[in-house]
């Protein structure tokens, strides 16, 4: 990339001053054109330094727009920053720190910023008033036709479909005192709390401390105020328990003083260094919160107040002092408060020609006015700009006196290329509001100030409408001390408030819109980004949208990327005027986080890609991987789905063959499957038997030591919840197993019953799922394999370990638990092994099984084996199924109370029409019965078709019976054995005639289990 070969001269840069580093020139490009700025610039200041006036286009009318502000409130100067996967649309030029090689492009225009076809909207603007789309586009050819065009024209910047290469993370911290804002009041607060020894965090949105002091020319103790800032910063840096985070925005206050803050770790660099996060989202849990968030200046509403070159007066001072940039050569200043004089004086001092200073207030004395007059500035009182001219930049404006009744006197044209305007300042009450804080109207500053709040947040300085420097400092010192004290820290001597050189200010006089020409082509904007004019607000009022919520939604006031930071109060005040009511009666909208927009990836943090959700691996995972397992995720666990031989690819046919092989091996020889994922819960205590008897629907009291039993649990509403086997290991010691999916829920439920419902039962429950690796050995040769693998002294004969027996044993020197239980329907054993030895025992079983053709099998084969046996899983137990539905109604004990019993005789549960579990086979003996098919009487019935049930699980082929089989639920299914119905799958235009059979296809007598 070649930069700056013909870099444009910085035509608007002052020769001296500012916080910029003139020894570090930085090349950058805007819309492909090369420029140069300095370290310390923002993109906005660098563009202004180069005389660039038009930076963006407005949302609706596509009007050319320049830079309005110097902060996060910027509604106009939005650009697309960077490119590729790092492209960021809608980036505020005022908040982008310049770096070498920065590339930005203008957005929301075609074909170029200077010539935008959509600017035609501006000409049609009289039709495109607030809410016009609700009134039209209803007829031919339909909304979708128009919508397509509207969508293309809407939006602002373009996103990207490339993946963001950067990493993001979260950081948690706790502190006694959190100070949001690094201006004078925030620094003073942090200083006092820090000196007391409190753990303090100070977050500051920009790259440096000082806040407004960076943009003004004030003194503290007769020295430049920034010297005090530097001294304070140094003192804070020396405190071990104080942390200052710059480039960090506190974006939200949440419950219990948890503050979310976004640290832009590397946004001021071209790319983050390796292993560093681009952004870090802080969770700050604070004892006390001090809000030193400052205030935001309001624009004035006058004709053409959106022209490039119309800027906030405070922003003009920021550009002069912080960036050494003159945003214009000839300025008009207009204000309803003393900031106009302050700005005009600073402009004149910087060599800008001040054409006119306009004060909208009635004539009156004031120290600032006197200074301006003394400096030779042309001051007009009770006067304002009424219309600004210049499409791509202000060229001049009409100024006029105001009669105070909505009329203007003679207008006079004044040439200028900069209009600095101030409508007063609104305290940033956003964070205060997040925590349900109330906002009170303060007539003195014509703005909302923080009122009562539940969370005990304290606002200081400009954030509570105290705009003077001395006030801000004393406010901060006091709040810092009080916060530390509230956290239990002793406070030393309270230092004197530093002395400032402030000039007394005269009160502001609100003026919400400046009357102007009646020419309807002159627009007076309230919300600059979304092009909401005072006419839109009047229209909304006329049509009855008279609450602030309706106004906002109808006109889109405050709905832009700036969330109305510069427009909300003015808009609400204009509505209040229209309603003839005071502003606080009309109300304000409540602020919600985030204060400024936050990237989705920052919220997500490190939970991306495979770390979106943790995966769980069994003790034998590596063995499976080495032996060709294809894994599938089940309840966070990675489980072998089936095994491939080396060198075979993952094609469907191969998968089918692998699964068939595995099923056949279990039925004819022997197989081994990893069942570590089943939940295992150790249950001990004198009341363990009684407890199990209450939580299981079937009886458990009579279970002898050394025996296992299948059990079913219900929910309190009588629906089947979970199943598994529970074994009695000792007199008062049981081991429960649960399904993989419900393991955590069952444990929490057991704890619930023990701690809350039956605290009289003395039972301790603990998850031992991870302690024990588990594997199931199944097949006619299972006993021979187990006997061969077992160590001396471990007897596994049918006598020593009968069906449902449980013993301790040893394999490969490892102490194991052996359970004679089976999910496959074959002679089977489940072996539980302390997990670190899981692989050793697995390998020992494989080795012992080799002579018998042992085959490891995965979930697919297990699924077919269990369907062949009619064993239900969560495919059947879908949360709507009763015991009767799955043919287990008889298992429920009638001799005892158990969880869910009180609900069992509800009319719907005993309705004979309820679908019941059945087996299904294709009448043609070969067509697959897909899961998810619906059972109907006649596939030719037109909708709506009466539904008889559905197919829950399907084996595309049962290798054992030689054809497809399925399990399903069918209305009165138990009475329909032998009948045929249709399984229809209209999504794929399939229908299969199926015969209803018993839901057990292999060894219904269970003889194989008992051999």
């Amino acid at each position: 990339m070649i930069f700056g070969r013909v870099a444009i001269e910085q035509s608007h840069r002052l020769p001296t001053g500012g916080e910029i580093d003139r020894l570090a020139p930085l090349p950058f490009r805007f819309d492909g054109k090369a420029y140069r700025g300095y370290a310390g610039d923002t993109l906005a200041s660098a563009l202004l330094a180069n005389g660039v006036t038009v930076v963006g286009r407005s949302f609706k009318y596509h009007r050319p727009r320049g830079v309005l502000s110097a902060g996060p409130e910027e509604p106009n100067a939005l650009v697309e920053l960077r490119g590729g996967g790092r492209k960021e649309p809608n980036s505020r030029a005022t908040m982008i720190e310049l770096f070498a090689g920065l590339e930005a492009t203008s957005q929301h225009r075609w074909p170029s910023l200077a010539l935008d076809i959509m600017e035609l909207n501006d000409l049609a603007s009289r039709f495109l008033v607030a809410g016009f789309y609700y009134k039209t586009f209803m007829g031919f050819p339909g909304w979708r036709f128009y919508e397509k065009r509207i969508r293309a024209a809407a939006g602002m910047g373009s996103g990207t479909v490339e993946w963001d290469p950067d990493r993001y993370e979260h950081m948690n911290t706790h502190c006694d005192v959190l100070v949001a804002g690094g201006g004078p009041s925030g620094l003073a607060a942090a200083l006092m709390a820090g000196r007391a020894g409190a753990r303090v965090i100070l977050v500051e949105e920009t790259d440096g401390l000082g806040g407004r002091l960076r943009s003004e020319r004030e003194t503290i103790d007769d020295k430049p105020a920034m010297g005090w800032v530097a001294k304070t910063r140094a003192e804070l840096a020396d405190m071990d328990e104080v942390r200052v985070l710059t480039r960090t925005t506190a974006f939200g206050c949440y419950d219990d003083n948890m503050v979310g803050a976004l640290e832009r770790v590397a946004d001021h660099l071209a790319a983050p260094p390796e292993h560093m996060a681009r952004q870090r989202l802080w969770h700050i849990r604070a004892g006390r919160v001090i809000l030193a968030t400052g205030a935001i200046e309001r624009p004035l509403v006058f004709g053409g107040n959106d022209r490039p070159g119309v800027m906030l007066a405070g922003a003009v001072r920021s550009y002069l002092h912080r960036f050494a940039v003159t945003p214009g050569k000839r300025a008009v200043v207009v204000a309803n408060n003393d900031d106009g004089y302050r700005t005009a004086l600073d402009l004149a001092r910087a060599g800008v020609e001040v054409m006119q200073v306009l004060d909208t207030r009635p004539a009156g004395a004031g120290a600032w006015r006197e200074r301006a007059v003394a400096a030779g500035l042309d001051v007009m009182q009770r006067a304002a700009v009424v219309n600004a001219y210049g499409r791509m930049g202000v060229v001049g404006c009409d100024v006029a006196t105001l009669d105070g009744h909505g009329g203007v006197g003679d207008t006079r044209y004044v040439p200028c290329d900069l209009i600095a305007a101030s409508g007063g300042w609104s305290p940033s009450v956003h964070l205060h509001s997040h925590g349900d804080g109330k906002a009170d109207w303060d007539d003195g500053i014509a703005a909302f100030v923080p009122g009562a709040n539940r969370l005990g947040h304290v606002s200081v300085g400009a954030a509570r409408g105290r705009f003077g420097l001395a006030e801000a400092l004393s406010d901060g010192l006091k709040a810092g001390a009080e916060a530390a004290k509230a956290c239990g820290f002793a406070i030393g001597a309270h230092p004197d408030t530093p002395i400032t050189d402030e000039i007394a200010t005269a009160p502001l006089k609100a003026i919400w819109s400046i009357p102007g020409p009646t020419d309807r082509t002159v627009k007076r904007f309230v919300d600059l980004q979304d092009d909401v004019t005072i006419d839109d607000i009047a229209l909304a009022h006329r049509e009855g949208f008279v609450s602030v919520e309706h106004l906002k939604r109808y006109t889109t006031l405050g709905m832009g990327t700036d969330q109305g930071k510069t427009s909300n109060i003015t808009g609400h005040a204009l509505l209040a005027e229209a309603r003839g009511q005071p502003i606080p009666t009309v109300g304000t909208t409540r602020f919600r986080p985030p204060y400024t927009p936050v990237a989705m990836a920052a919220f997500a943090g490190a939970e991306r890609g495979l770390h979106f959700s943790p995966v769980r691996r069994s003790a034998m995972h590596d063995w499976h991987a080495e032996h060709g397992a294809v894994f599938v995720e089940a309840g966070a666990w990675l489980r072998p789905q089936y095994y491939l031989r080396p060198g075979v690819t993952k094609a469907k046919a191969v998968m089918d063959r692998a699964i068939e092989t595995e099923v056949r091996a279990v039925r004819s020889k022997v197989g081994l499957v990893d069942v570590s994922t089943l939940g295992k819960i150790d249950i001990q205590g004198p009341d363990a038997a009684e407890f199990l008897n209450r939580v299981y629907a079937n009886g458990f009291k009579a279970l002898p030591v050394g025996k296992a039993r299948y059990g079913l649990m219900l929910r309190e509403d009588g629906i089947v919840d979970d199943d598994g086997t529970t074994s009695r290991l000792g007199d008062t010691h049981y081991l429960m197993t649960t399904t993989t999916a419900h393991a955590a829920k069952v444990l929490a439920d057991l704890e619930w019953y023990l701690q809350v419902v039956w605290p009289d039962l003395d039972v301790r429950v603990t998850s031992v799922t991870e302690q024990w690796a588990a594997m199931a050995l199944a097949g006619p040769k299972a006993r021979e394999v187990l006997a061969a693998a077992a160590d001396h002294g471990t007897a596994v004969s049918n006598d020593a370990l009968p069906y449902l027996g449980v013993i301790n044993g040893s394999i490969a020197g490892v102490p194991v638990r052996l359970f004679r239980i089976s999910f496959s329907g074959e002679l089977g054993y489940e072996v539980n092994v302390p997990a670190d030895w899981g692989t050793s025992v697995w390998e020992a079983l494989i080795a012992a099984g080799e002579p018998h053709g042992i085959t490891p099998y995965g979930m697919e084969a297990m699924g077919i084996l269990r369907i062949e046996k009619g064993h239900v899983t969560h495919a059947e137990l879908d949360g709507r199924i009763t015991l009767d539905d799955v043919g287990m109604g008889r298992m429920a004990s009638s001799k005892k109370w158990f969880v869910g019993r009180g609900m069992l005789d509800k009319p719907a549960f005993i309705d004979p029409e309820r679908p019941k579990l059945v087996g299904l086979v294709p009448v043609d003996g070969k067509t697959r019965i897909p899961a998810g098919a619906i059972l109907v009487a006649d596939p030719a019935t037109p909708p709506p078709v009466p539904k008889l049930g559905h197919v829950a699980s399907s084996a595309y082929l049962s290798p054992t019976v030689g054809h497809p089989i399925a399990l399903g639920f069918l209305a009165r299914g138990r009475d329909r054995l032998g009948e045929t119905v249709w399984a229809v799958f209209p999504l794929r235009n399939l229908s299969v005639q199926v015969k209803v059979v018993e839901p057990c296809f292999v060894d219904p007598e269970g003889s194989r289990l008992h051999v």
Partner: protein
Amino acid sequence: MAEYSVFSLIRNALGGHKDWIRAWRDPEPKKHYDVIVIGGGGHGLATAYYLARNHGITNVAVLEKGWIGGGNVGRNTTIVRSNYMLDGNAHFYEHSLKLWEGLSRDLNYNVMFSQRGVLNLGHSDGQMDAYARRGNTMRLNGVDAELLDRKDVQRLYPHLDFSAAARFPIYGGLLQARGGTARHDAVAWGFARGADRLGVDIIQNCEVTGFERDGNRVTGIQTTRGTIGCGRVGMAVAGNTSRVAAMAGLRLPIESHVLQAFVSEPLKPLVDGVITYGAGHFYISQSDKGGLVLGGDLDFYNSYAQRGNLPTVEHVMACGLAMMPYLGRVRILRGWGGLMDMSMDGSPIISKTPIDNLYLNAGWCYGGFKATPGSGYVFAHTIANDTPHDFNKAMTLDRFATGHLIDEGGKGPTPKLH
């Protein structure tokens, strides 16, 4: 009735828009109404509209404690669909969808109903089987549905995460092409305007404070603007149902939970339809203004605060990026919390109550917005005829006693899980 049309818009534009009249009047409450609908949200306004339009009952008041449309109809993710499986729900939601299809013209108000398609992604064989069952049921009910495999999804949305780094790979999805989105505020305003034009009084800033009873009948509604007599009363105050019902002495199978939703900065078109992530609760679409509108799961505790918490925000965004990794740098502009009437089986209650002339419309969980026209339609029918419509006959209050639950998710009586 002032017709909205492109011609009236042009005529008014030439006149400086001075002649538009209020979208709905601001009347003083009368002493007595034949029907009082409590709740000026989407459902309440739709109920009033259909009472007047379908049943000729025009002496109707809608009482709203704040400003109409300020509750869930203005605080949702605007998704409209009818992909329901259980008979108790399916026909109702399909009827509602059909009403959506003609709603703008019916109301003479453009609610911007846009059938962009609703796609639910599936991430396991089990989930795809469940989608197949749902989709097949829909088709048998005469509702459109398409089952997509992985390749189909990739054709439709090539930029979702189809990589090996996807924690939950995409197996396929269930698409309802007739589903989509609508402009939520316009729905409230359109019904309000429509009802108003038919004579309904919409009374804002009128909070209900109690019920006057005569035996088992409600005779009047006490409000902050005085007592108003009534023939029948319909309650449609989702989010606050338990509180208002308690004033009438009713306890309900409902909890209020907060559900957060979010909108991003406006972007040029990036996401065409509505997509939901199947391995976590997440749904996204893009508004006509360009903002991505997204939502996720509840905050999981009872709340009336309309204010959510950070862990849920973070999880929702993580879900979004798991599905669409390219949204990483998209910035979230605004979030809000809505109060969900979480019922015990996840389905609504549109029902008579133990009180003779009090009717209940509640328990919408996440899904109330899409039901707005259908809900108003059948609730109006239920109130007008003192008997439910065929479409809501299963949505009774006594189903919890009889066991005829409508539990689409199979989650049981744990409202936060629905």
